[in-house]
């Protein structure tokens, strides 16, 4: 780093630390969002409002109602079918369960549960989860009924099965594929094998959560730096000084990167305190630092292109949203059309999530080297593009 780059970085950092609203937006908000995400992904479904109607005259209907009532997952109301339907319609409850009139008879004769579960799936995740939790109660009801003479397919569903107990122990507010596979698979008589048996459920979501936090901070911070200098006119002065366009961009990259590294350190300190030694924090730091580098370079390119700060932030947010949608951190990217997926290699999140999965789930930091190298190459490409653009644009 040249002396000029050092001074430009030092005073750029000083100026940035005085812009508290921007710092809050770029630094604190992603950490808070990540922690909120961690809380959401660490807790199971609870107190879902449910309306139940029992039209069965036999004893199994009343038993099923009691089982729903006992479940901590549901906040149950028992009433007639019409009232339950009205409550579902106006959003007072998320689901209704109607125990049909012939439930006891059918269960005794055919070994089948005669109940109708209706779920409001306008909130997809809540709808899915509620359906799964209802199924779980119904299966438990079935198992309990046949406790002394279970059909072979249901043997796998016993709560005292060590593997099933482990799976149920990993309940979260997200659908876990293994649970869906297990329920379906058990009835089909297939055997399932899970790739990852990570004991900490949060680990499945960490690659996405960490990536979102770092991408948000690095991209927004970097995207604002050059355009702000242009808006207050100091860019003109800086470029008329001995500071070259390359040194100037390096200084702005350094400012955004330093702030991102501070954020990464805070995140990993909290994570280390929360999860202890279950993760290689050093490997995580390396991956996140490279992700920050690539995101800063992308942000600097946006900032160099943007006409004003609002424009820059709009583009930065758009880039972040695209990465959330296509970076496979939350949504399965395999369902996207090929044309849309073609931009995945250009997104820092794609490579970051791949690298973080290597470190967190496979416990193989060496496997992260490939995606990390790609991030470094992307950073160099975007920085180079920003340099060419600044040189061309400012020397009109």
């Amino acid at each position: 780093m040249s002396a000029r780059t050092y001074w430009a970085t030092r005073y750029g950092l000083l100026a940035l630390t005085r812009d508290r609203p921007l710092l809050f937006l770029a630094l604190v908000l992603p950490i808070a969002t990540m922690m909120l995400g961690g809380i959401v992904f660490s807790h199971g479904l609870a107190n879902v409002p449910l309306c139940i109607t029992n039209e069965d005259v036999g004893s199994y209907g009343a038993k099923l109602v009691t089982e729903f009532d006992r479940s901590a997952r549901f906040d149950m109301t028992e009433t007639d079918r019409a009232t339950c339907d009205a409550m579902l319609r106006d959003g007072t409850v998320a689901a209704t369960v109607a125990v049909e009139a012939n439930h006891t008879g059918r269960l005794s004769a055919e070994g089948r549960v005669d109940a109708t579960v209706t779920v409001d799936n306008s909130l997809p995740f809540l709808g899915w989860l509620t359906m799964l939790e209802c199924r779980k109660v119904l299966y438990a009801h079935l198992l309990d009924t046949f406790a002394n003479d279970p059909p072979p397919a249901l043997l796998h569903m016993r709560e005292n099965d060590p593997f099933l107990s482990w799976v149920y122990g990993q309940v979260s507010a997200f659908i876990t594929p293994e649970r869906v596979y297990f329920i379906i698979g058990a009835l089909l008589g297939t055997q399932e094998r899970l790739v990852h048996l990570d004991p900490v459920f949060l680990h499945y979501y960490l690659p996405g959560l960490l990536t979102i936090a770092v991408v948000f901070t690095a991209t927004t911070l970097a995207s604002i730096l050059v355009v702000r200098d242009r808006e207050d006119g100091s860019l003109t002065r800086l470029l008329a000084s001995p500071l070259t366009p390359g040194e100037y961009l390096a200084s702005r990259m350094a400012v955004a990167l330093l702030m991102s590294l501070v954020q990464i350190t805070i995140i990993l300190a909290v994570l280390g305190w929360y999860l202890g030694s279950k993760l290689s924090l050093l490997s995580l730091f390396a991956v996140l630092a490279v992700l920050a580098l690539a995101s800063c370079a992308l942000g600097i390119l946006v900032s160099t292109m943007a006409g004003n700060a609002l424009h820059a932030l709009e583009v930065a947010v758009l880039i972040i949203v695209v990465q959330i949608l296509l970076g496979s951190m939350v949504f399965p990217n395999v369902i996207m059309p090929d044309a849309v997926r073609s931009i995945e290699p250009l997104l820092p999140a794609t490579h970051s999530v791949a690298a973080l999965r290597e470190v967190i789930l496979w416990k193989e930091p060496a496997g992260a080297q490939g995606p990390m190298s790609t991030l470094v190459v992307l950073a160099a490409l975007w920085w180079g593009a920003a340099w060419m653009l600044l040189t061309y644009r400012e020397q009109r």
Partner: protein
Amino acid sequence: MDAVVVKDIVKSYGDRRALDGVSISVKEGETLCIVGPNGAGKSTLLESLAGLVAPTAGSLSVMGRPVNGSDAQLAGQVGFMPQAPSVHTMLTVEENLELFARLNGTSEAVGSTIERLGLKGVRSQRADTLSFGYLQLLSLGVSLVHGPRVLLLDEPTASLYPSVRKRVWGIIREECEGGAAVLYATHTPEEGTADRGIVLEDGKIAFEGVMKDVRAHVLGD
């Protein structure tokens, strides 16, 4: 020695010619006033000399070196003050001066520049809290703080109170007496310290001569 030499410079933006065959030279210790209506090409000429605008044709040299935006050594010999006060709004007066001094490899003149410009009372004040007059003075200070050999000032006294304008002209005179070549653009040729001037109209030199004649040309005396 000629500190600034401009030969047949042309700068086009599409079909419009902001500068159209302008040639000037300014010696060390000499001051040139550039007068002209809005859009005449005054700022473009100064920005070209500062390496911020690449000419379409013609040549520019400052202190014997061809002007280009990536010549750090040349940039260190030039002090450029843009038309709008252009400083880091989040930094204080002193920090702004120190930053631009450090970028030129020095920091010795920060204190004296603050004294010279009368900025002592606001030295710890952030630029975004300064009045326009103080901002203009700070902007001038930033272009002076590293002791440049060539000063390019775009309307250095615009919107300033008369007594402050007088102080600014005094400082420019001192710089000139110290051997610096000064080029400044203005709309008010009746004041200032220039030895001679040019009148730019539609990117061309419409008149040039000593200041008395330039004033007469512009003001129609």
